[in-house]
């Protein structure tokens, strides 16, 4: 990747969505006119059920209207056409299944997000900081891939995303922290520095104020490692 990622760009770098066709959201368009409540609903769901790491306002618990409304989020988009019965020939079973699942790329459409969650990202040893909008990602994996792309020219050895994957694997955590590899940490609302990955994704997005990618050695020194190991062990 190299220097392209570090060039001054106006677009959002390292973001998978900019490389792809902007995804048309089918059924999810019905949610767009009700954006605030959709976000609030998400928080309520978190407290009542085991959250997944994939943020999605249209998760299984919402009743999904089968037809599209005619109020697209983007007024430039044409209104939905009247649907012809039985065309295209997709079985009801399949249509229903797709309708209730989380759709790819929904959350990465930043146009739709009313409250982007930009946080500064610093990496030890890098000459300057970056900013990312956490709302653009659905999972730690996506964030780590993105950070990896952003800072790949600065890392020695494993690239960041591999480092993140490794740190998720308990047995490799100590190896990682002992090496010159990097550990992602973040400052939460209370001002505490936490290890990225402990809490469900949505919770992380809400509480993260800034990110710091620390060198492994420093992370041990801060006492992050034992806490992280303990937390992982407690979760059975």
């Amino acid at each position, binding site marked *: 990747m190299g220097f392209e990622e570090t060039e001054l760009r106006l677009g959002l770098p390292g973001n998978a969505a900019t490389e*792809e066709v902007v995804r048309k959201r089918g059924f999810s368009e019905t949610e767009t006119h009700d954006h605030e409540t959709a976000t609030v609903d998400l928080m309520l769901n978190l407290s009542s059920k085991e959250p997944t790491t994939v943020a999605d306002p249209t998760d299984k618990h919402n009743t999904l209207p089968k037809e599209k409304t005619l109020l697209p989020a983007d007024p430039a988009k*044409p209104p939905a056409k009247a649907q012809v019965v039985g065309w295209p020939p997709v079985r009801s079973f399949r249509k229903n299944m797709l309708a209730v699942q989380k759709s790819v790329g929904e959350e990465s459409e930043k146009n739709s997000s009313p409250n982007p969650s930009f946080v500064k990202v610093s990496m030890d040893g890098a000459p300057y900081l970056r900013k990312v909008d956490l709302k653009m990602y659905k999972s730690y*994996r996506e964030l780590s891939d993105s950070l990896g792309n952003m800072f790949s020219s600065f890392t020695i050895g494993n690239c960041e995303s591999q480092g993140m994957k490794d740190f998720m694997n308990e047995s490799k955590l100590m190896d990682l922290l002992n090496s010159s590899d990097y550990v992602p940490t973040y400052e939460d609302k209370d001002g505490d520095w936490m290890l990225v990955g402990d809490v469900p994704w949505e919770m992380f997005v809400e509480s993260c104020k800034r990110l710091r990618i620390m060198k492994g050695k420093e992370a041990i020194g801060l006492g992050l490692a034992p806490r992280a190991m303990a937390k992982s062990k407690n979760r059975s």
Partner: protein
Amino acid sequence: MPRLAYSFPEEVLEHVFSFIECDKDRGSISLVCKSWYEIEAWCRRRVFVGNCYAVSPATVVKRFPKVRSVAIKGKPHFADFNLVPEGWGAYVFPWIKAMAAAYPWLQEIRLKRMVITDECLELIAKSFKNFSVLVLTSCEGFTTDGLAAITANCRNLRELELRESEVEDICGHWLSHFPDSYTSLVSLNISCLGNEVNLSALERLVSRCTNLQTLRLNRAVPLEKLANLLRGAPQLVELGTGTYSTEMRPEVFANLAEAFSGCKQLKSLSGFWDVLPSYLPALYPVCSSLTSLNLSYATIQSSDLIKLVSQCESLQRLWVLDYIEDAGLEVIAASCKDLRELRVFPSDPFGLEPNVALTEQGLVSVSEGCTKLQSVLYFCRQMSNAALDTIARNRPNMTRFRLCIIEPRAPDYLTREPLDAGFGAIVEHCKDLRRLSLSGLLSDRVFEYIGTYGKKLEMLSVAFAGDTDLGLHHVLSGCDNLRKLEIRDCPFGDKALLANAAKLETMRSLWMSSCLVSYGACKLLGLKLPRLNVEVIDERGPPDSRPDSSPVEKLYIYRTVSGPRLDMPGYVWRMEDDSALRVS
């Protein structure tokens, strides 16, 4: 010349016939002479009824008294797309009732697009002591209570498969009705059930049935439970996962990966609802031996799909969403050299704009790289004659080609011309083509090609195509092996039908909806062809209340030896034949 045929004792003939399994051949044998007819009938063990109204249950049980396995199909194919109104028919009860009396040793029932009630299931459970196989595909009308009757009573059950059926899910405990002593399960498919089944009962069932080969779970089975299930059945050959996501936790992942690597016989995977890509690497240990992969519910990006599929070098069947994109199909063309069947489904079928980078190019790539490709179902938003021509020339071995260009009447996107030449190339080069579905802008010309070249064609699906009756005429007069023809929204009227009326008796069925066939023509067909049931489906009310020239909404014509069916709903009218007139 000595008449050897008559000198063989019956037992010898029966033994010889037992090696003939194909229905068509069995039919031929039965036509040789009266004694062969009788012997063949006596020893036929499997019956396939392609249209439940083509013959009555009484006729079947009378001719074949010793049947062990029955397969019956009901509603027309277009019922899958909501074109057949509720209550149309295809009730299996009369069949079960007749077989309960005639076949106490019946073992297998396989139904497709039929209505089966709990009462039917209870009757099955009660009547057939050796019952072992129940496969319900696209069926409806029953609840989990009916399933409980099966699991509680069928001691020899080996296969229970509910494929894409509509089941009223009352209670997940039906699975627990298998007694603890029951261990003969070989195949279980509950993928279409909405609610949870009793998971601990499922775990116990899976681990004590050591012959279990196929296990297709439903979405309600959480990913955390999958590893345990797999450990209980390391001999599994076919697996359908439940939900394929949960919080990303290293130990769950490790557990799952280990469980998968223990399944050395795994050849087929499906399920994959709500996929979290980080969990896909758990499958890597089994990828290289997979022959069948159904990712058609996996709403994940091309890059994640590619990472998985590129490792499946033995893949023969792949079902996937169009998230695979052209790039992914190119990878498949390079990696999956044994691919025989490809189905690409639309992730956003009702969207107006493309949401993925999937075009005709993806299919062209696969047609180039996968030399064994025979069967294609492809949804896309643009196509060209050039691409179809390339595909046809690349893959003359194709036997099933179903293309759905999402926008009706979409022309060749490069030349703006109809796609006649492209589909013409398909039928011309693919000489063994048995099934074809058309789409896009098409004139009568494409039907001329089909009639000329489609000599082996058995099933043809047409929508929003053609200009005049000549189109339909080409097909009816040219396609010698046509069995099923289904047409919607085409300007085909009376002329072609009436000119080719006799052809209809050589086919299983004809469906026409939103076309231009008049009520008068239907009446005429019904009158002249007593061995057909000409059924007009019209929800506007009795066709008599409209002029004879008025087009009917829908028309379903099928050959039958049983005369009119007795269970037609209020919106179906059968056109009388003149045998009724003769009697009176």
